[in-house]
């Protein structure tokens, strides 16, 4: 039973995988000839289960389950480089623009809390990279973390293309999104 639970947990929350397990929220998907993007909102219970399973301290888990987690999977289907650059993503809800909790925020937060280094490291690996040049065929993923609000959210993502970012960019808009409960 324990192994079954472990496998379910892995399936439900594999930050580096594009595969999507059964979950309360349906994944949102964009796909064209050059790019595939999938967004999966995560419930507080999924978040807590994953990080408790990784032996995170209670105070770290409490911090995390209070936020809105969206697991993002990205696959470059083109023959060119596609850039992930989270600085070029915009998040908003009816009250206006939303600020994403980025790596620097969490680094400061964990250091202030005295969080264990292994947990800090594992946490960083579950985040979507701030910037990455997706090579042809490459797939990577990770979480973006937003304030937990009723929503609905709008996510606008701009993907520059080409080695020098001079190719035709790919624009993706997800709307409406809600935090999974």
């Amino acid at each position: 039973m324990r192994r079954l639970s472990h496998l379910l947990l892995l399936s439900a929350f594999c930050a580096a995988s594009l595969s999507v397990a059964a979950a309360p929220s349906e994944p949102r998907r964009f796909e064209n000839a050059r790019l595939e993007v999938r967004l999966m909102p995560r419930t507080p219970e999924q978040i807590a289960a994953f990080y408790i399973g990784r032996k995170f301290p209670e105070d770290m888990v409490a911090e995390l389950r209070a936020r809105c987690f969206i697991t993002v999977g990205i696959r470059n289907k083109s023959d060119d480089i596609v850039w992930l650059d989270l600085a070029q993503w915009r998040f908003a809800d009816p009250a206006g623009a939303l600020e994403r909790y980025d790596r620097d925020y969490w680094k400061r937060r964990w250091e202030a809390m005295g969080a264990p280094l292994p947990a800090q490291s594992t946490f960083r690996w579950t985040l979507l990279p701030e910037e990455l040049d997706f090579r042809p065929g490459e797939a990577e993923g990770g979480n973006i973390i937003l304030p937990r609000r009723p929503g609905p959210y709008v996510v606008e993502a701009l993907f520059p293309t080409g080695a020098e970012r001079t190719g035709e960019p790919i624009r993706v808009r997800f709307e409406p999104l809600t935090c999974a409960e």
Partner: protein
Amino acid sequence: MSRLLHSVFLFVCLGQAAAAEPPPGIIEVPGTPAPSFELPDLDGAPFRLEERPGHWTFVHFWASWCGPCRREMPALQRLSAHLQDSTLELVLINTAEDEDTIWTFLADVAPELETLMDRTGEVTEAWQPRGLPATYLVDPDGRIQYQALGGRPWDEPAYRRFLSGLLQEPPPER
């Protein structure tokens, strides 16, 4: 006769070029020095990369919670079996997990494999992987020459041929 020799020469050259071509998902990188590290294995014995010069090293970062890592691990175990008489050294590095987690995972998924433990995750971050899993091919001079994008079917013929080819050629000059 000279045309025949020329054709044979071209055939041999093209054949060698084809053999050296990296399989899908393996990219050449600029030959930067591999970050040094000293990490313990599951028995506590230390391993230092710079103490293993003179042969290619397959450095692989992984974590048990990473789905692609789990899927790739059996292929690494089969590759390991093929490498037994090879000079290519397979070095697995677990990222920021404890002994119990690693033991349980490997016993279940790839019991023949051994791993080093990067308990704090600092060594992994020094290598700046694009994600997990991450594999680097380090040449006999200690330089990273190739990087794999995500998990790869390492035991498939194209990958095994590529790895075998590395051992028969001098490292690329950059």
